[in-house]
């Protein structure tokens, strides 16, 4: 189920990106965070606990919404716009964290 609910501005041009290999339908002008959370409940797995995360501040201060490009570049999902053909990963490529959860 989606976490975010669209309340208007829905006649923008559609955009398709790929998240963890799966196509995700978004709208032009969506942030990555909105693209992901209008289509699902969470953004990523916490590295320090058992819970999944979905961002917190939406203004680039908390860093809770990091996602990655396939090249390994880190993006803040709240402040990066979704673009056609984007390929996003919700876990850091090649990294392993000591998840104590």
């Amino acid at each position, binding site marked *: 189920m989606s976490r975010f609910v669209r309340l208007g501005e829905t006649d923008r041009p559609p955009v398709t990106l790929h998240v963890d290999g799966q196509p995700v339908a978004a709208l032009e002008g969506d942030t990555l965070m909105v693209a992901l959370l209008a289509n699902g409940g969470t953004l990523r797995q916490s590295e320090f606990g058992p819970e999944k995360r979905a961002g917190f*501040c939406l203004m680039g201060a*908390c860093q809770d919404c990091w996602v990655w490009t396939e090249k390994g570049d880190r993006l803040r999902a709240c402040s990066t716009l979704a673009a056609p053909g984007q390929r996003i990963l919700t876990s850091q490529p090649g990294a392993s964290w000591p998840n104590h959860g």
Partner: protein
Amino acid sequence: MAEPRIIIVGAGPAGTRAAEACVAAGLRPTVIDEGRRDGGQIYRRQPDHFTRPYGKLYGTEAGRAQAVHGAFDAIKGRIDYRPETLVWNIADRHVWTANGAAQEALPFDALLLCTGATDRLMPVKGWHFAGAYSLGGSQVALKSQAVSIGHRVIFMGSGPLLYLVASQYVEAGAQVAAVLDTSPFSARVKAMPDLMAVPSVLWNGVKLTRALKRAGVLVHHGVTPLEIIGDADTGVSGIRYRDGGGKERQIACDAVAMGYHLRPETQLADLARCAFAFDVGTRQWLPERDGDGRASVAGVYLAGDGAKILGARSAEASGKLAALAALTDLGLPVDKGAMASLRGAVATYAKFARGLAKAFPWPVDQAAALPDDAILCRCEGVTAGDLRSVMRETGAKEANRAKAFSRVGMGRCQGRYCGLAAAELIAAEAGIPVEQVGRLRGQAPVKPLTIAIGDEE
């Protein structure tokens, strides 16, 4: 003489008015802003393809938002504007910037820090679950993206923004389950003399509360938040709290927006080596400044909510005033009458802000009352109990020492969201005034940089 190099950090209401004053004096300031567009957080502009009009986006502040945007548009061609650029350090009279992988060190003669604010948060058990958001974040979702943070939203905390955002959600068609305010209604009555300093803003607040009640939204005052109920995989499912009468209640929701006023982003002032002083009214350490915005370090000026939370209207005045102070110090002619009237405006807003702090107090007791298993640091999942046992084991009673041992404040957000509550918890635990706990020192980089920046060198 070469043109003085003026750098303004931030393009919200304070930065915009500061830049406008510099341009009016015939100068070309550099304006560095993290945002994709100008406006800051409060007057954040929506991306291309969004079509909502000003009235819908900014409500009672539509005229002001439009005026600030218009002012920025008018000077855009006459400033060195650097959007999507982070100032991550200030050292040796240089501002260090990062834009993607590109970085620069820019020298300055005058530096105006208009860095704005983020939400002040009081942790509650369960605030790490997916679906718990900062109040400001919930407003950004609506204003900048036309989305609600959930299907059934609870607004919890205190301060005027709580009512503003809740009513904006209702108006936009979102389902608001409740507004839970930790401040008792009696506090508002006591604050009335100060709140009367700006009657129009007070009246707007009264109208918002009425609109919420008319819409059938449950509004509770004097509540004590107990827990955000949730699940590791699916996130938030409800809130447990004690109402003003002491009765425990539970409400179902899938999203919580929480905030207790704002806190200024002072890290850059810290890195510029500005002196700080403890502000009793807000229980925060703030950079010192004179009445016109001069910091303790020559050539550094502070304005807007990044210096002290006085609101967007005040930010416009203090931004312009700080710029005029800088121009004066650079030996340029300025309108002394304009400075005097700006000082008057700032003083009026300061009185109003004192009223707001009294009406919607920071619930310090909740930090002390956090159960040991509640997460205090969201970044790294450090609990209140972890911090308490570090204090017992090491005797740490100072903010930076406690941080070093417990990692509270050392995570990705660098203490922005846990730091103030952690200080209150330490103070309560150690039985000392919170000012003795001190403040978390600002560290460069003030936000995480991409590793690629190091590769460029």
